[in-house]
């Protein structure tokens, strides 16, 4: 279970300029749910995802995932927690452009010094699952937007995490590729993954396999 309790995030731009990105958010998600966070740009969706993944710490309140108060974890434990439990698909993919497809996908495994055979097995499995095997050795910056997104998904899935977080996943895709991504989400949900997607793409709002749609406006749940 994921619980956001009295969550507030204030960005201090300078001494006299503070931006309240989230204001006392309380939410609960169950294992295996697909949740859509909808709202306009700047509404606070991405901030919720960032706090959920432990990429930043709340100003007040806490994030509890599987009974762990992750907002209180020290940096290194948080990194470990992220590596083992969370797959993050970023809006701009956040791939390393000069690396090949397989190098990007393997990145989360590198610090664990994996056995080469196991690494190859895992890579082969995710690359097949997300239909990117044929580009295995291509340099990421030479791929199309759709291909880069599949690499980003494969990277998020390489550790087989329980929680998948996607920030505006279809923002840079055409409709056909967006529909393809939705199919991938459906496939992931069927394997009982908890999926949280922040989007303002209407394609997501009428899906029959979505469990919750949460509207975020000016840092508050509406």
């Amino acid at each position: 279970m994921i619980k956001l309790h009295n969550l507030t995030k204030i960005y201090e731009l300078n001494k006299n300029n503070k931006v309240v990105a989230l204001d006392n958010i309380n939410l609960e998600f169950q294992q295996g749910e697909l949740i859509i966070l909808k709202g306009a740009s700047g509404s606070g969706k991405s901030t919720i995802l960032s706090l959920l993944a432990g990429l930043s710490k709340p100003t007040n309140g806490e994030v509890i995932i599987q009974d762990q108060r992750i907002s209180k974890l020290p940096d290194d434990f948080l990194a470990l927690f992220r590596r083992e439990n969370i797959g993050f698909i970023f809006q701009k993919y956040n791939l390393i452009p000069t690396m090949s497809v397989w190098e990007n996908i393997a990145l989360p495994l590198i610090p664990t010094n994996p056995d080469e055979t196991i690494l190859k097995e895992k890579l082969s499995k995710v690359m097949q699952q997300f239909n990117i095997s044929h580009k295995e050795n291509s340099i990421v910056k030479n791929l199309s937007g759709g291909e880069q997104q599949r690499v980003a998904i494969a990277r998020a899935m390489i550790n087989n995490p329980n929680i998948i977080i996607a920030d505006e996943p279809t923002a840079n895709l055409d409709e056909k590729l967006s529909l393809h991504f939705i199919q991938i989400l459906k496939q992931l949900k069927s394997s009982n993954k908890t999926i949280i997607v922040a989007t303002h793409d209407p394609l997501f709002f009428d899906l029959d396999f979505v469990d919750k749609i949460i509207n975020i406006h000016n840092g508050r749940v509406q």
Partner: protein
Amino acid sequence: MQYAINSLLRQKTKTIFIIIIFTILTFLLTSIFFITHSIKYELDTTANNLPQIIIQNQQAGRLTNIETTILDDILQIDGVSDAIGRVWGYYYFKQANVNFIVMGIDNFENQYKKSFTNISNKYDLSDNNSMIIGNGVKKILKKNYYTDYFNFITPGGTLKKVNIKGVFNSNIPLESNDIILTSKDVVREIFGIDEQYFTDIVVKIPNPKEVNTIATKIKQLYPNTKVITQEQLKVSYQEIFDYKSGIFLVLFIVALFTFFMIVYDKSSGLSSEEKREIGILKAIGWKVDDILKEKFYESFIISFFAYLVGVISALIYVYILQAPLLKNIFIGYSALNVDFILPFVLDTQSLFLVFFLSVPIYIAATIIPSWRTATIEADKVLR
């Protein structure tokens, strides 16, 4: 480690540029150390082989030849075991624009140097038309087509033909390189030195503690003479060396300054791409330790590789190629211009010094800004 290697290969141009700059600086620093160390070693050895006392005659404040009769008086002084009159001079060889030292030794005499005793035992120079030459002299004469003999021009304008009998190989190349050894009579003929005179007299004293006392006694006996002890010569050699090493010091400081400018530039911040990569690595579950370990490997590979290439290049440049350009600043301490071979002396202290001045500093300059970025929230870095 593999990730670090791949990372360096991905940024080929940048990696090659850093390695080239780093290698050049290591090469310069190491070469300077190698050259100064070799020459210092050579000068120290030369100075230790100098006579304990040299007596020169002065007239009107200028050096002039010394009378042979003085020799017997010197031998009478208590504590003196031997005194040898030397006949020698600088011979200017116009075609090559160099000076050779022409030194006279007689086979029947005691020699003041072991290397001369060896020559005296091995070669008979009493025929008055043969000579033993140093390696540098040999090369220059060969370049000018003198392989078997050389024609000296005497002060009277006549030619004195002297046959080359052998090559003088001493343990101290700086000492033997530009020297010609022949009989004293031949030297007298070449320089026009009368039989009643020596160029100077060297004195042997078994007890080193008595050197200064005996030097004072000689000075009292012959107030016109200039009495130079081995210690005084060492000091003057050291002064010449210190002056020349000042030039090297300037080069050394310039190289070091350039290196620290690069280090400062690197430590003052990472590029936006580097920051973004660290942010991505953190976001996908890399710990700060993992990131720093990777950065350590990267900087170690670059700096150690550049250090090795720099040191090996310096070894080749100094000891195989004989440091063209740089060596000329030092060699020719007696206004000579002959080839001198830098002796190989493994200077481990300098190697360690250059290592500690470069590799750990570069690693720190890479790790510190990476650590600064890695300890910031990933969200902030990626924004």
